[in-house]
């Protein structure tokens, strides 16, 4: 598919400069940020996702960021009811959904109110003008109508009578009454597709499949889509089309996936690589619930899911499953992780493999359930009573969630230890193109199952593999391996209760050593440092993409700066000391008050510069670049 066909008149591609093309200018841009905003009921997520698909299939690189109304469904038309979806598309390897939108679709006054301030100067506004009645303006808090009071000066404004157009379009589709207006998101989408020179075909195919069993709805949506597209072609007011060319992504098969889904799939991959059935126990909590939902649909993969009565039970149920030899996982968000600590401590001391997924959200307490934050790091690394060291792995992007989940499984099973896998609300819901891995190429996991008695005719549950210090996993059903484990300190090798002081010291040391030693079994951190910089920027988790982009921006400004992302936060990779000591300055941007900063200082006694942001909104590349420039004295 090539997009030249869809501009009227001359359609030679051109870089940079706008050009006249039969009355319609074609702006070629290397990237563009588009935001869909409307009421929760306006179907903005759907429109955004469809646009994303069209862009992906066209070959753009892209990153998306849906934003849902917080917690309670607000009444239609109000500010808290606004739902939005942002996508950045580009002809190169972009990393974030971008900062200031170049195009805003605003379905009602509230959407305009909330999002206008973000739109970049001269940006395009596609506005559903018919929603701007007095009632809606009042609900949105406008004192006068922004469409004609000068508020929109400096923007490229397009007022579209979306409701009239939609009504006209869907007439005869069989949809009637209130339902008619439901198709207006497709109208907006059609118009946007035109604007970006995309065919409606990809979307139409999807509509046909999705609504196959709802003839009327299908027809209405298709009609609205087409009408929007045609409105773009025919309306004089549209003098610009925007071209963003396909990116040159590495060859491969791509899909577009959000982090919760990718993480769930990664767990299934862990299950297949280990040959163990996946068992997922969870209590619903935003933004982790979708992992449960995704896995609940995968029973044919042998996956069992369990919705527990609370998070403590979920952790306990997972631990019970781990005892039987399952690949046991429990998933939650911050408040739930606070609750699971005691059970995790038991899993740690019984040395059973288990994965605890924490999809971080804004804290403390209930906090900001729909916003991302990176503030559970301390809790993950140090948040249990007693000496309870654990491996902690953090995903950095939607697609990386897959790989991180696989790694968490590998470590848990090889070392017989619970592993905490951190994600966050941004990774959870944002989507990005993901080059599918070669599944056949992934190495199988060896699982330290006990095959039989390991000390003459006895079985000693705490006899260890002297390389990994993992004990053997003897699962019920195996004759001759009957044994008891528990939370009171255990005697080395036998696992019997022991109050012996020296044994407690030994077991504490072994548990610490076991985790520390994993440093030798994880990839070293790779530093991206083309120029031999003095400044290293360290990133972890979802902010990594913005940080990488910000580093790129700074380099474009001629600044030498290195970047490394840390996936393994406990233990740190073996080359951390070397890396840290190779730089004069280390900058650690985080969406918290400096948790990785403190971990690094506590481990390596090296000064770091912290860039902290706790607003529930991800860093932008600009913010990172600005800080780098500041440190570079610019």
């Amino acid at each position, binding site marked *: 598919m090539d997009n030249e066909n869809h501009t009227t008149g001359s359609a030679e591609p051109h870089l940079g400069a706008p050009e006249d093309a039969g009355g319609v200018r074609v702006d070629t841009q290397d990237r563009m940020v588009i935001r869909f905003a409307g009421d929760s009921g306006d179907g903005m997520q759907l429109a955004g996702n469809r646009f994303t698909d069209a862009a992906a299939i066209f070959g753009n690189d892209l990153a998306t960021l849906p934003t849902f109304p917080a917690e309670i469904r607000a009444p239609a038309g109000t500010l808290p009811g606004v739902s939005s979806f942002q996508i950045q598309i580009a002809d190169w390897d972009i990393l974030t959904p971008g900062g200031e939108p170049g195009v805003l679709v605003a379905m009602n006054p509230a959407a305009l109110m909330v999002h206008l301030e973000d739109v970049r100067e001269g940006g395009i506004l596609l506005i559903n003008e018919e929603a701007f009645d007095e009632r809606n303006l009042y609900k949105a808090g406008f004192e006068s109508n922004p469409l004609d009071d000068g508020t929109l000066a400096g923007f490229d404004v397009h007022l579209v009578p979306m409701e009239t157009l939609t009504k006209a379009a869907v007439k005869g589709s069989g949809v009637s009454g209130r339902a008619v207006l439901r198709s207006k998101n497709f109208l907006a989408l059609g118009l946007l597709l035109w604007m970006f020179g995309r065919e409606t075909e990809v979307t139409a195919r999807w509509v046909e499949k999705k609504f196959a069993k709802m003839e009327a709805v299908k027809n209405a949506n298709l009609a609205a889509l087409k009408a929007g597209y045609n409105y773009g072609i025919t309306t004089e007011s549209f003098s610009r089309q925007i071209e963003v060319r396909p990116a040159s992504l590495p060859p491969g098969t791509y899909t577009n996936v959000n982090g919760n889904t990718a993480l769930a799939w990664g767990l299934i991959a862990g299950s297949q690589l280990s040959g163990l059935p996946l068992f997922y126990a969870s209590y619903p909590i935003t933004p982790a619930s979708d992992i449960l939902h995704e896995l609940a649909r995968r029973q044919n993969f042998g996956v069992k899911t369990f919705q*527990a009565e609370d998070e403590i039970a979920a952790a306990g149920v997972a631990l019970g499953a781990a005892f039987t030899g399952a690949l046991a996982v429990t998933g939650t968000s911050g408040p739930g992780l606070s609750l699971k600590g005691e059970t995790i401590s038991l899993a740690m001391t019984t040395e059973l493999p288990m994965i605890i997924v924490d999809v971080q959200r804004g804290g403390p307490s209930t906090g900001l359930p729909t916003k991302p934050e990176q503030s559970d790091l301390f809790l993950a690394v140090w948040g249990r009573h007693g000496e309870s060291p654990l491996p902690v792995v953090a995903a950095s992007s939607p697609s990386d969630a897959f790989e991180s989940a696989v790694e968490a499984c590998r470590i848990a099973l090889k070392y017989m230890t619970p592993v905490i896998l951190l994600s966050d609300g941004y990774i959870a819901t944002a989507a990005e193109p993901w080059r599918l891995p070669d599944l056949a190429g992934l190495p199988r996991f060896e699982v330290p199952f006990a095959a039989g008695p390991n000390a003459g005719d006895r079985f000693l549950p705490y006899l260890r593999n002297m390389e990994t210090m993992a004990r053997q996993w003897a699962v019920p059903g195996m004759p001759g391996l009957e044994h008891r484990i528990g939370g009171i300190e255990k005697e080395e090798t036998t696992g019997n209760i022991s109050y012996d002081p020296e044994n407690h010291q030994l077991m504490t040391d072994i548990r610490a050593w076991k985790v520390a030693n994993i440093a030798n079994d994880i990839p070293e951190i790779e530093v991206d440092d083309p120029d031999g910089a003095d400044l290293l920027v360290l990133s972890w988790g979802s902010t990594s993409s913005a940080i990488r982009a910000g580093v790129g921006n700074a380099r474009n400004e001629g600044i030498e700066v290195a970047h490394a992302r840390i996936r393994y936060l406990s233990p740190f990779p073996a080359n951390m000391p070397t890396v840290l000591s190779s730089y004069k300055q280390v900058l650690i941007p985080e969406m918290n008050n400096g948790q990785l900063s403190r971990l690094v200082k506590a481990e390596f006694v090296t000064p770091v510069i912290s860039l902290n942001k706790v607003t529930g909104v991800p860093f932008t590349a600009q913010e990172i670049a600005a800080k780098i420039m500041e440190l570079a004295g610019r």
Partner: protein
Amino acid sequence: MSYTRVDFQTDQEVRWCPGCGDYTILAAVQNFMAGLDIERENVVFVSGIGCAARFPYYMNTYGMHSIHGRAPAIATGVAIANPRLSVWVVGGDGDLLSIGGNHLIHALRRNVDLTILLFNNQIYGLTKGQYSPTSEPGKATKSSPAGSLDYPFNPVSLAIGAEATFVARTLDMDRNHTTSMLKAAHQHRGSSLIEIYQNCNVFNDKAFIALTGKQERRENRINLVHGEPIVFGADREKAVVWEEGRAVIVNRASVDPSRIIVHNAHAEDASQAFALSRLAHGPYGPTPLGIFRDVYRPVYDDALEDQVTRSKAARGNGDLGKLLTSLGTWTVE
């Protein structure tokens, strides 16, 4: 496979206080297990924390001495992940009714295939004698020197209110009765709860004297036996009859024999079992022992296994490669 009790003993020294009721229960369970046709390796005991919760260490099966209150949850995981195991939960009144109360009632309503042994000594033994959720009102303990203000649970009533499918009560001292309750609970697929009155001779000695005292037990013990009329007393001179939805104790002679309740443990409606549980709120007078309720309801572990099987049959064994491409793909060359 044929076992003797010794096969279920471990090399761990049993460390309850001399005279503790836990010993008799342990012996009863070990003997009972030896007589079953389940392989030892297919048995799992899960406990929380407390004196009672030491139990798994003394059973030569798989076992976990977990953390306080969480045994029903952990055992749920064991049972659901592997429905072929025989999963037992042991805990005290504090462990299962105080901190673990929620996990208990949820396990019961879900009807997970667990046999739960609630060692009710009406006290916190391990932490040295605070009142528990089953202690009598007004009880003076270290944490309630002026008398406890808590009104106790009736564990049988609570379990029935929580939709339990099998609820029984027995007494540590009566090994035969304990064994017959174990047998029935084991035969019941789904959750079974056995409340075992267990004497803590150190912190709450003689709490069950009404059922263990030579004279008292003859007067107070009400045996519930399915299909049999509920009569009791030293001379079987008392009987239980229905009176407007309540179970009421009467002089046997004063009622027509046809009015005496013939115990039906298998009644679908839980009301009768509940009413019988109200005959005694703690073992201070006439107190029923036996099976209150024993009915069938689909079992969680089986039903989940079934869903998995059906899903595989309907959709074929999951193919990860297909899953990864299920949202649509595009190719860059």
